């Protein structure tokens, strides 16, 4: 129980630091004080000054962050500058969309990566391994923008783009980890003694490589979220990824801080979850 509370406290500290850090990064980036509307030549000098002043309101990051935390405790996440809507409403609408797209993409990507890595490793045929490597290289080398546009053109689901972004990365780690494991002496002995391939996989390979594979699972969530930004923007999907890109271009401080906090929570939760699972796996193997 104490360990759990310590973990939660550490997570909270990281989330708070993350929010402040992201606010600072946004504040220090050029373009924070300006508004595209300033370029409208119909606007009077007073109106331009008013636009600048509205932006300057959040210049003091410490004050902004304290106000933000105070409001967040009451459930008010602020208002998006670029979209003129409450952040809570935006996140509530868009999070399920991204969860579905990224979640399905992650599952599909993992499934394909693990299956292909297993086949390539267990079959122990050079040709198969080469084909799998080429396939992974193709999807690693194709920009997400190109993939996304091709899928839109073909009316194919956008989650498959995320799957194809995740697949080569997970495949690469999985293939190398499994290959090393299958080359170890105790496995060669097991083969020689006639132990079946499924038993070898479940009893001898996964316990050894499992914790690292679980760590890959944790980071693949970050990969999927990162891929969601270009994929949603290009496929016209109104999810968190598209929101993040619009917020970044518009230097939308309230929205960006909330999005960073959200991503930090997801990253910490998945990586922590994979750590715990890895520990259990090692204890079970021992």
């Amino acid at each position, binding site marked *: 129980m104490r360990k759990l509370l310590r973990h939660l406290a550490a997570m909270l500290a990281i989330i708070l630091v993350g929010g402040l850090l992201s606010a600072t990064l946004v504040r220090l980036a050029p*373009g924070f004080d300006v508004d595209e509307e300033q*370029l409208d030549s*119909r606007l009077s000098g007073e109106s331009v000054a008013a636009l600048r002043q509205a932006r300057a309101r959040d210049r003091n990051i410490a004050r902004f962050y304290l106000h933000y935390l105070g409001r967040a405790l009451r459930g008010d996440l602020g208002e998006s500058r670029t979209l003129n809507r409450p952040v809570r409403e935006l996140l509530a609408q868009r999070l399920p969309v991204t969860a579905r797209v990224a979640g399905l993409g992650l599952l599909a990507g993992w499934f394909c990566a693990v299956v292909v890595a297993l086949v390539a490793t267990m079959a122990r045929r050079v040709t198969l391994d080469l084909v799998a490597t080429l396939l992974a290289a193709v999807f690693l080398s194709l920009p997400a923008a190109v993939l996304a546009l091709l899928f839109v053109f073909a009316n194919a689901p956008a989650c498959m783009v995320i799957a194809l972004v995740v697949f080569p990365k997970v495949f690469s780690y999985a293939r190398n980890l499994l290959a090393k494991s299958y080359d170890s002496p105790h496995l060669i002995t097991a083969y020689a003694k006639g132990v079946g391939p499924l038993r070898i996989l479940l009893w001898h390979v996964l316990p050894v490589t499992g914790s690292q594979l679980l760590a890959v699972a944790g980071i693949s969530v970050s990969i999927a979220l990162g891929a969601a930004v270009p994929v949603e923007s290009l496929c016209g999907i109104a999810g968190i990824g598209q929101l993040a890109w619009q917020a970044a271009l518009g230097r939308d401080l309230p929205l960006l801080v909330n999005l960073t906090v959200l991503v930090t929570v997801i990253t910490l939760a998945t990586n922590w979850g994979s750590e715990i699972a890895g520990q259990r796996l090692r204890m079970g193997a021992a």
Partner: protein
Amino acid sequence: MRRRAIGVVLSLMFALVAAFGQSGGELKFFVHSDPKTFDPLAVVDDASETIRYLTGGVLLRVNRRTQQAEPELATAWTIARDGRSITFNLRDHIYYSDGSPFSAEDVAYTMQRLMDPALHSPTGDSFRSGSGAVHTKVDSATRVTITFPEPVAGLDKLFDQVAIVSSHSNNKERAALGPFYIADYKPDSYVLLRRNPNYWRRDAAGRQLPYLDSVRLGIQPNRDIEMMSFRRGEIDLINWLDSEYFERLAAQSPGLVHDAGPGLDSEQMWFNQAPNAPIPAYKRAWFRSTNFRRAVSAAINRADLSRVVYGGHAQPAAGPVSPANHFWFNARLRAPAYDPSGALRILQQEGFRLQGTTLLDREGHAVEFSIITNAGNKPRERMATMVQQDLGKIGINVHVVTLDFASLLDRITGSYNYEGALLGMANTDLDPNEQMNLWLSSADNHQWNPRQKSPETAWEAEIDRLMKEQAASLEPVTRKACFDRVQEIAVEQQPFIFLVYKNALSAVSATVANASPVVLRPQTYWNIETLSLRVQTASKH
């Protein structure tokens, strides 16, 4: 006899089908972002402007084809001799979409709200001629006078942008006098506009307009998806088409694309002449030299820019006003001819010399500068690269730096940490008063050297004088003469090196009847009341 009867019946049937075929249906097209506001007086973005155009009732409308003001809710108007007030005679028995009556009080209410200093809207600021309050006088239910503190040039046409808001309705923002009203809005998805059952306008046959039942504005930021959707028949028009997409679409379906000719928009570059800019003094000296700017201008091949970047759908630009602006365009002006040898001669007069392939100034500095432009805008990136090559031929080394728009804006309006910039001008209004804050040396948008306490050059002082004179005058002839001279000075001095006027390109599905794209915004649906959908299966384009 029987054959004749059958013929009559068939003709009647065809006529009926044609009549009903010309009404009803839902027009679909995309806007590229969620609207920031539904308040027609606070419009700042394109999506909100589209909704305002389709739902707002205005006192008069600038016909997008003839560029002349025509009566709408006002049957007639008179501008006082001193140019400070305007009196409108209004139509009677007009109702908002929610049934509330329209009267002169609504006009007064709208103007009071619009001119509220706290609103800071571009529409409101267009009317600001001086400090002091705007007064409204309601003479009767159908007559209202609006008085401004100072004369407002081009006063009547400014009302094209003012949608009259109801002073009585419970839902002021959404009660519409225009052909449609806002029926539904799903953020990130669509805005649905339905036919206004109380719309006052009728066609020549006495049928109530609009013909369409509804307009669905899908929210789609991605232009590739817009293009694909159009080709699949999922949307009926693309209001603004990139030249690259125009060519591809034209190759497959030539009848669906429209090139209305040079639009109001231009692309230009300029040099940073701000005295406090953090650039080396010798570079500032180059940029402040009129001959240097003229030489750079002469060294740029505008015909190539039009042909290569825009596929011929652009025209070399001379000055700030394109020929699309019938009245205000100065027809005496010509785009600078491409003349690299002439450019070098001009530079040599200023003490520059070519050493090998490098141009040096009189102090021996190699002529080198950067041009910033906004990343993601492919035509501008390509133009910047072509300008880089053109100037390379006369020994000038140009660095092209593409930046995200906020960073770029920060440099040109905040830190002034830039040397050259390449951007465009999107002109929505025909009247040169719209450009007042561009030409006045004290203004924020006087891009090359903004917010001057007093004009730093004689020609800027002359432009200030001319712009103020045309703003104070009510005589079109006087105003035209003043602004013609402003354009001439702009071409002589080249503070902006105007590159091209972009053509107004659009695409309209074959199912849309009565479409007649023009150069003024909104190019394709300016006559929305009379657009209709043909009764045929929409096929893939």
